[in-house]
């Protein structure tokens, strides 16, 4: 996947209105290698994400992805839509684990525009129809 990368990253605030939706992004299946790569790039060496024995001892069926991995992927998808420098806030609540083999679908929609600032609701849902996060962002837009 070039993730959302098929769309160029915009500089200027985008013309977005209430109800506008981001083009849906579907990830490749997550692998243990993806988790290890995020450990290295993001600095999260919590063993529950890469050490099978630790994860099982903690009561998990296997290792699972850091929330910050798929939140980060959602963040770059958002950036391709609204422009990275136009994002004023980004927040997410993690509602489920991402397991090896899972495929996520990212969606986002403008729910309000007030004084040039859009409020955007975002979601990531697994192939099992389980929401793994709910997010909210604000971004500067133009009418």
């Amino acid at each position, binding site marked *: 996947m*070039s993730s959302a990368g098929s769309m160029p990253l915009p500089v200027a605030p985008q013309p977005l209105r209430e109800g506008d939706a981001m083009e849906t992004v579907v990830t490749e299946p997550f692998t243990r290698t993806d988790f290890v790569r995020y450990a290295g790039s993001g600095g999260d060496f919590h063993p529950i994400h890469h050490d099978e024995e630790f994860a099982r001892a903690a009561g998990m069926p296997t290792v699972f992805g850091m929330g910050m991995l798929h939140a980060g992927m959602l963040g770059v998808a958002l950036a391709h839509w609204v422009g990275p420098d136009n*994002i004023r806030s980004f927040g997410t609540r*993690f509602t489920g684990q991402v397991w090896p083999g899972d495929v996520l679908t990212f969606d986002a929609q403008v729910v309000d525009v007030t004084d040039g600032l859009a409020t955007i609701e975002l979601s990531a849902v697994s192939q099992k129809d389980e929401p793994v996060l709910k997010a909210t962002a604000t971004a500067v837009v133009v009418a």
Partner: protein
Amino acid sequence: MGSGATEGRELETVSFPIERSKLRELARTFKDDDPVWYDEGAAAAAGFDAVPLPPTATVLADHWRERGATFHVEAAGLDLSRVLHGEVSWEFLRPLRIGDELTATSTLVGDERRSGKRGGEMRLVTVETAYATAAGEVVARRRDTLIETAPR
């Protein structure tokens, strides 16, 4: 909120650079092959005054922390094997840039105990981190909620 004699306690301060190699790694991790995320020429060609950062890029601070991204687990006295990341949010006061040297100061702002769904006691710890320039200008804030599930 909560039970916390510890609320308001500073957990850790760390200074760190926003640097290109780690941004390249992050872009690759996020499976985004757009060179604007790490190449100054590509960023300039796309109209950016500098390489822009993805919204979660403050994680670069964790490379400079002794215990990485889990620094607050020990500092708040949580059991690593029972900790889940519940929430995270950022507020950006200006865009972050390569070459920024930031100091991240993390403070424990909430420590709440609740009854777990399957009995026992769970703990919710909230940590706020402010990212400031050498001149003391706060450019971003982050808030994390960690959940320590009830003992099994």
